[in-house]
């Protein structure tokens, strides 16, 4: 036994889905992301961990150009999705965000029916030619979001009437509905109880079959449970990036170890 890595978790053979090089992010004069290089793999769950304010959300938002919506924010460097520069002038950010979906900390269903929450994206992206096709996308997405059985009899009920955990799975189903390739999740479980958290984690593990999933989490245990790769951010730097098993049993950087073991550092 040389180390604690679990072999089934080895994902290094998977294709690189997103490659970031020399990524810098500034909010006005604040240098929030400093020279980050990272390869994010397909069919892999990658966890971003680190203390509050270290830049996890900022970097996550670079991956689908959500930072474009923040006036003071400036992104530099090279970020490629399947080899294509996502900051290229000919890339439509709205199309990009359909490919690189996002789920937020607080479940934010639209104030519409469960059905319309899911149907919204496919409609604006013209993914269905008729009602029957749309019905099919809605059912498939809700099934993939592991919430179909709980809502199939009340698709017309408002999405906001569901429990927190159900709302979050509805939001994941909504993100899936536009057939993304990458799912970005920013602390998706921080507002959920342990059962709802376990359901979302189970869902994330299933989604890994088809997508590249990147999750920001404040729970060390959650990062250890759901991810195969872990990236530790500190003061805007990517300090350590490696197999989750290695990071949690034998981190190489003192700052990583201090953070994950709850030391003052």
């Amino acid at each position, binding site marked *: *036994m*040389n*180390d604690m890595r679990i072999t089934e978790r080895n994902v290094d053979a998977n294709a690189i889905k997103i490659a970031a090089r020399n990524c810098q992010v500034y909010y006005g004069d604040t240098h929030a992301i400093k020279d980050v290089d990272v390869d994010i793999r397909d069919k892999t769950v990658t966890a971003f961990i680190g203390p509050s304010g270290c830049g996890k959300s900022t970097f996550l938002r670079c991956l689908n150009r959500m930072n474009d919506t923040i006036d003071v924010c400036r992104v530099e460097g090279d970020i490629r999705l399947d080899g294509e520069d996502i900051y290229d002038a000919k890339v439509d950010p709205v199309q990009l965000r359909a490919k690189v979906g996002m789920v937020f900390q607080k479940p934010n269903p639209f104030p519409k029916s469960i059905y319309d929450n899911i149907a919204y994206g496919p409609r604006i992206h013209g993914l269905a030619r008729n009602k029957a096709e749309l019905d099919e996308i809605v059912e498939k997405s809700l099934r993939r979001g592991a919430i179909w059985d709980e809502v199939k009899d009340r698709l017309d009920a408002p999405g906001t009437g569901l429990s927190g955990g159900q709302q979050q799975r509805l939001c994941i189903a909504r993100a899936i509905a536009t057939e993304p390739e990458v799912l970005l999740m920013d602390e998706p479980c921080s507002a959920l109880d342990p059962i709802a958290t376990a359901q979302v984690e189970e869902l994330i593990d299933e989604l890994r079959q088809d997508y590249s999933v990147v999750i920001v989490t404040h729970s*060390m*245990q959650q990062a*250890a449970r759901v991810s195969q790769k872990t990236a530790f951010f500190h003061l805007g730097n990517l300090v350590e990036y490696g197999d989750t098993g290695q990071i*949690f*049993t*034998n*981190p190489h950087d*003192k700052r990583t*170890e*201090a953070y*994950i*073991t*709850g*030391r*003052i*550092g």
Partner: protein
Amino acid sequence: MNDAHIVSSYDRDLESIQALIMKMGGLVESAILDAATSLETRDEELAEQVRKRDAAIDALEEQVNERCALLLATRQPIARDLRTVLTVMKISGNLERVGDYAKNLAKRTGVLVHMTPIEGAAGAIRRMSVTVEGMLKDSLDAYIQRDAELAEDVRHRDLEVDQMYNALFREFLTFMMEDPRNITACMHLHFISKNIERMGDHVTSIAEQVIYLSTGVMPDDMRPKGDRTSMDNVEIDG
């Protein structure tokens, strides 16, 4: 770099478990030395004491296991902290086994004092015991200091113990062949020296845990093995 946890009771939990290991180590060290002394000085009373004291070592091992289980359940240690808990559990298991061997030595002392002594045997066994006790002491020091180098040194000293065992094994064979009346005593002495050789293996395992704890990787190079008696052949011809 401050080494303390933000939650200070976490440090106290870890420290109290390690204190139990040190206490166990102290008891095991004296068990080894006292058992060997009891054999050399033919002191049945001391041997009896060693046998009785083993219960305290067993009880400490149980306490270590309980505390570790509680710490795993309540704090979910990771990285260095996880390695501390894993190694503590293994080391307490090793110490408990070494304690058992010392107790067994003391039991055999109780039998051997009623037999004619085998010349030189008790002295040689005592030297072997002192060597193992020294290795144990150093491996526990290495544990407290997280000193992988000292642990590596202990690992290599096990070769000496293996060689001492080989030499004794041959000597006992010779005594038995010379005079069959020596067989019973020599069989007991052989078990004793084999058990001390096994103590050395457990101490080596402790040293390996120290290396894992401080570096995060188990030493994987083959340790020099000196026990070749399984391949020795006794030639008896008339």
